[in-house]
């Protein structure tokens, strides 16, 4: 523990600025992944434990697309669409059949896909880690804002995260399709009684959640090396974010992601060896005192 370092930092404006912006950057990247997980849970009531593997798949698809086209934008797009399609198939042929079952069965189906996808990636892309490299467009010196350093690439990622957050919020609360989705989440039988195709809504939402995971994988690919099995740490991180923010709440995921980002950036100063422990500790505390998370609906 280096509490003096933490206190010192809290006493210095530039340190607070830098660490807070660090927290925001980490949070933005976390949110990109967690958004899909929480969306799927919020509407379908299932936890997609294969979410980290979707992320991995997105990163690899982006890698291949980037090598083929040399375009980062196309690579990210391909990652999102590719994983979205995969998620649709996954929902259609596997997940759909266990919606009514025990959570354990859902867990196992996802677990099976974690194992399968890790091996598939190994067969297709190889066991060695791979790296996409920074696209030339972003190879520029970082910006200096208020005493803190912010890379141009992260400014771009943060705007992407913000845009996605806004679009999700807007779609869910301000559009007709959002209303239908929320109705399907709250009362599926009523929705189908009203003549809406609940199954299609579920498939769309699941596929969109997958798309978000793939997009996140593709967007972050330039700065994260990839290897089979990389999805797991992503799953754990986004899971913590989702639980803390409230399972099913998109705004909660945003808050949770920023909270975890701040815990990590300030925690790495005060408790450099226990940063991960701090993340789990905060998850425990949230679950004990507010099981439904910061923004979640209260437990019935």
């Amino acid at each position, binding site marked *: 523990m280096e509490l003096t370092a933490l206190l010192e930092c809290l006493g210095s404006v530039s340190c607070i600025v830098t660490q807070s912006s660090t927290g925001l950057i980490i949070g933005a990247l976390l949110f990109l992944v967690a958004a899909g997980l929480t969306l799927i849970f919020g509407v379908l009531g299932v936890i997609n434990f294969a979410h980290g593997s979707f992320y991995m798949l997105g990163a690899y698809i982006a890698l291949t697309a980037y090598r083929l086209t040399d375009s980062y934008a196309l690579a990210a797009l391909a990652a999102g669409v590719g994983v979205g399609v995969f998620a649709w198939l996954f929902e259609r042929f*596997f997940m759909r059949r*266990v919606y009514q*079952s025990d959570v354990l069965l859902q*867990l*196992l189906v996802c677990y099976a896909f974690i194992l*399968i996808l890790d091996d598939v990636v190994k067969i297709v892309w190889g066991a060695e880690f791979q790296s996409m490299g920074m696209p030339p467009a972003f190879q520029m010196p970082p910006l200096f804002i208020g005493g803190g350093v912010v890379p141009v690439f992260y400014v771009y990622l943060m705007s992407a995260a913000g845009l996605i957050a806004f679009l999700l919020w807007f779609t869910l609360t301000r559009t007709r399709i959002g209303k239908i989705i929320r109705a399907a989440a709250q009362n599926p039988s009523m929705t189908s009684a009203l003549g809406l195709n609940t199954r299609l809504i579920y498939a769309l939402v699941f596929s969109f959640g997958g798309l978000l995971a793939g997009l996140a994988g593709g967007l972050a690919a330039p700065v994260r090396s990839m290897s089979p099995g990389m999805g797991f740490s992503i799953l754990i991180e986004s899971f913590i974010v989702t639980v803390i923010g409230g399972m099913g709440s998109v705004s909660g995921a945003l808050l949770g992601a920023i909270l975890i980002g701040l815990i990590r950036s300030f925690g790495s100063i005060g408790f450099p060896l226990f940063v991960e*422990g701090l993340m789990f500790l905060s*998850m425990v505390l949230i*679950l004990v005192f507010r099981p439904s998370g910061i923004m979640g609906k209260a*437990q019935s």
Partner: protein
Amino acid sequence: MNHLRDWQKDSLWALLALLLLLALPLTSPSRVVVDFIIRLCAMGLLATSLNMLVGYGGMVSFGHAMFFGSGAYVFALMLQKASVSVPVALLTAMLACALLAAVIGAICVRLKGIYFSFLTLAFQMLLHSIIITWTSMTGGDQGLTGGIPRPVFWGIDLSQTQHMYVFCCVLAVGGLLAMRLLMQSPFGYTLRMLRDNEDRAAYLGVHVWRVRLYAFVLAGVFAGLGGVVMSLFVSGAFPDFSYWTMSGEAVFMIMMGGIHVFIGPLVGAGLLQIFNDTVTRFTPYHGLALGVVILLFTLGFQRGVTDVFRLFRKSSAAAGKESL
């Protein structure tokens, strides 16, 4: 006299199983069988104790391996650092697991459904980070290395394979019998009441929280016993023992074997082990193979092996008492 007969029947079965196990190495000199059974003892205890929570109590724990790991670490540490005798280390390990389970359980069992699962998972990951961080005590990510000393006690020398084999079999069969008797006791049925309808049980005067906590503690103790066997097998203790993957494996074992028959988890543990040991021999893509098998079970049968048999038996008998 009816209740006495049940009790005796279970004990006789256990005795028979133990005798069979002890006779097994005589029929085949291969140490593979011996190793297989020692591992099965460890994993069987872990899976069966988890099923006390999941199958009998309806409490889906995602973090059960934390007690498996704790049992292994405490046992190994007592022998390595405190140099106590094996029985003392064993008792300390079980006691430590009971205490840990009591503290964590007191917090967890208040939550229902998926939140209980999340909280157990979070505690497990927290414990795992502590094990990794507390290097001076646990050896960190390298695990507790250097071997576990095995002082001779009561004429038993655990550094000899035969002694070790007998010891592990006795622990496992004893542990399984104890769990069976617990599940057939009044307490076991109270647990089933809670699983079926916790609300109603409370309206019948059951102290829900307390009964769940007892179950959580007991399951923790028996998982710890499994950890002890595993630490003897690998002669050490590793952070992996209390990692989510271990819990996940236990969950898969009970789902594969079936949660509605007492020995289901044991059968599942055996099947998974056989599968794993065979497949890893032929291909490095065992993840792919295991994934396909899991899909087959979850989507094809939607239940475990022993549950399939149980349904089959039930439908052929048309009616009758549930076996659980």
